[in-house]
């Protein structure tokens, strides 16, 4: 496997994230189950001085699927965004986050972090271009590899996301022709192609109808044991079906406004 980028290596002195070897290791050596991929201690999200979320503390061990649930407005998605440094304007985080044993220093314009811990947003976003273009979207920038190697990785990712059999014959057709459920799995594949140390799935099925939901759930279930996944869901039954364990995020105390009010 190619090293991820020189970008990451040059970033190493400023940001303590992960180097590519760790990334690959964590994926390939599933047997090291007790290895902690992400450790979060006392994470709080604040708007000005108001506390919107937290404090939450949890650890994700390699190969586990963890559910993050709680009522809507409790800030589940915000936690995911805080982890990958994509908080909306005006919000800030407090607390410590470690990825693969190294503390993350946020706010340095780091991109090595986000290709190690990959967020898959709630609504599937399909860019212009073909299915292949979309699957290559991040990979193309992050990895230097030959065309065949890239295609191998994409194929692998599409298989893992359970989409390969449906699109293998039409990789060059526009991605806009996919159904919603297929789009969500394409987004999943796009993330998997980066060989991330952990995947953060933000309500992957909430924008989908029942049938597509089942297909996406199947794909997520198939990752269990192979990938480290943090799954946000408001549906306890789904968390029950898919996850090894559950973290609850609750609404902040009544005197403080919740996210929904912001």
């Amino acid at each position, binding site marked *: 496997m190619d090293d991820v980028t020189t970008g990451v290596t040059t970033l190493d002195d400023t940001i303590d994230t992960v180097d590519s070897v760790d990334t690959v290791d964590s994926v390939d050596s599933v047997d090291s189950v007790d290895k902690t991929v992400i450790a979060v201690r006392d994470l709080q999200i604040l708007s000005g001085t108001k506390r919107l979320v937290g404090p939450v503390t949890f650890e994700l061990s390699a190969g586990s699927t963890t559910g993050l649930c709680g009522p809507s407005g409790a800030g589940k998605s915000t936690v995911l965004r805080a982890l990958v440094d994509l908080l909306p304007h005006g919000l800030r985080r407090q607390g410590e986050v470690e990825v693969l044993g190294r503390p993350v220093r946020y706010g340095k*314009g780091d*991109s090595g972090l986000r290709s190690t811990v990959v967020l898959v947003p709630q609504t599937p976003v399909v860019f212009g271009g073909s299915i292949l273009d979309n699957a290559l979207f991040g990979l193309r*920038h992050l990895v230097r590899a030959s065309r065949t190697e890239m295609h191998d990785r994409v194929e692998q990712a599409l298989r893992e996301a359970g989409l390969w059999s449906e699109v293998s014959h039409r990789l060059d057709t526009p991605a806009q022709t996919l159904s919603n459920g297929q789009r969500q799995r394409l987004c999943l594949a*796009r993330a998997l192609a*980066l060989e991330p140390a952990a995947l953060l799935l933000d309500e992957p099925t909430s924008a989908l109808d029942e049938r597509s939901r089942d297909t996406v759930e199947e794909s997520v279930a198939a990752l269990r044991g192979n990938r480290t996944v943090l799954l946000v869901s408001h549906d306890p039954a789904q968390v029950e079906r898919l996850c090894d364990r559950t973290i609850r995020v609750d609404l902040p105390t009544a005197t403080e406004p919740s996210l929904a009010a912001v």
Partner: protein
Amino acid sequence: MGLILERPARAPGPAVSRPSSGSGRGSRARWVWSWAYSGILSVLLTLAVLLGYLVTGIASGTVDWTALLTSSTWSPGNLAFGGLAMIYGSAVVCVLALALAVPVGWAAAVALSEYLPPRLAKPLRLSIELLAAVPSIVYGLIGIMVIRPFVADLGDVPGGDSLLAAGIVLAVMITPTIVAVSVDALASVPGRYREAAYSLGLTRREVIRSAVLPQARPGMRAGVLLGLARALGEAIAVFMVIGRADGRLPESAGDVFSSLVRPGQTLTTKLAGPEPMLAGTSGPYFAALCGLGIILLVLVAVATVWGTRGSTGRAARAPRARRSSAWLRTPKDRLTTVVRLGALLLPGALLVGMLGILLARGGAALNPVFWFSASEGASGGGIRDQILGTLLLLATAALIALPLGYGAGIVIGTRASARTARVLETLTVAVGGTPTILLGLAGYVLFCTTMGWGRSWLAGAVVLVPVVVPVVALTTAGRIRSMPGEITEAALALGLTSSQYVRSVVIPYTWPATLTGLLLGLARAAGETAPLIFTATVFFGAPALPTGIVNAPVQALPTHIFTLSQDSGAPEAIAQAWGSALVLVLITAGLLSLAVLLRNRFEGARRWTT
């Protein structure tokens, strides 16, 4: 929804009460629709008049099209009419303007939309929109005072009148337009695209290149084409710095560059010069000028229509698959950040420089006496009459344009099928993009000569109407299109007829947008010089307010500045010109601020409806 419920009295459901007789209701319906359709008719009529003027002009004498397009000899005395040098001049100044303005404009737009925090970006975006509305006569004045001396030093050009100076003036003029339209296009890319790309670990540069620009590109290209249309159709600002020398073509390929620092002529400057007045209204001379007009109109129409089609083009192109960019990602990202933020300095400097120069040189305008006393010749007194004249022209144009533009907008927004709406919209855009010098010439022939009005304020106001109507119509139609579907559905479900629907739903919903459009259109019309020179204004000798229609000219600010700036030797005249320019900019800015206030108000309304 509250909007409908608030006005039940004006929208009676037919089943509940039908107080008026059927005929009364019918006549009111007819009234609404005849009003709306007369708006569309006015747009079509403008085009018809324009084309009619040019075509009859061409028909009045034989035009040698081959000579017009391939010969560079323009000599009316010998009946030799070759337009190649003017076409070349137009092409060169436009290429120069685009080459300077597009890279800066695009980079600044990206910086504004993707790099600056909203707190900084919002006021800056607003000021650039203001800059885009500064009258071209002011840019011309800056061209004379700043750019011409600069070019004179640069290339050993006596006076500095040259194609290069014209290109720079146009670049300065269209940069704000390009930035404003491109920022709109970038802002309309949904944030989830950025988030999806960021969450894959891309740098900001990569996110912009792969996720944002493919979506925004059609809109950004539209901004360039609109800028190009503006540059092609601009007469006055170019007129002031190009030197207007006929028949100049580079002798060889190597001569192209040195010809840049020599005077030239463009299509618009030829038409804005004295020749249309000398050519009469028929014969080969007049026909040749009309031929030039047709060439200009076609060029501008192609750019405008192409530009608007680009902005509605939906299919975003695939991002080009490019590998091997893995190397040096972070340094590249930092470098792009610096370059883009740096590009923002230019429009910023333009803004500051413009304000500075206006305040420094236009000091006369800071004295109230200047506003409230009549002018004395070229060098003394105030500009009371010019202000009054401008306001009279604007008020009259507004009175005529508001109902027409509103009607046209309603027809485009509600009545037409998708396809007809697109055609009507394109025609409206074409009218809005018409070089105003052509409007002036057509108005001159129609009102001043054929109808015998001579120079008349009313002719000037009517000629300004086609400048305002498209802006009103397009903002209204856009607002109607943004109406939530449920409102329409709810209204029609109550049994409202289409005219009742217009009166009780569409108009209450759209009027703030329509007024915004009117103010924006008026801000543009306030700075128009070219249509007024032939039709409505004199430099002095007119009463403050005219008493009739026939032979009743006024004095107006833009033409006042234009005349004064021709006399660039006399320092008093120049001081007067800058003072007038400051006043004109203040009037424009006033109209725009009102428009912004209104827009904020109806943006509040939007929050409240949904």
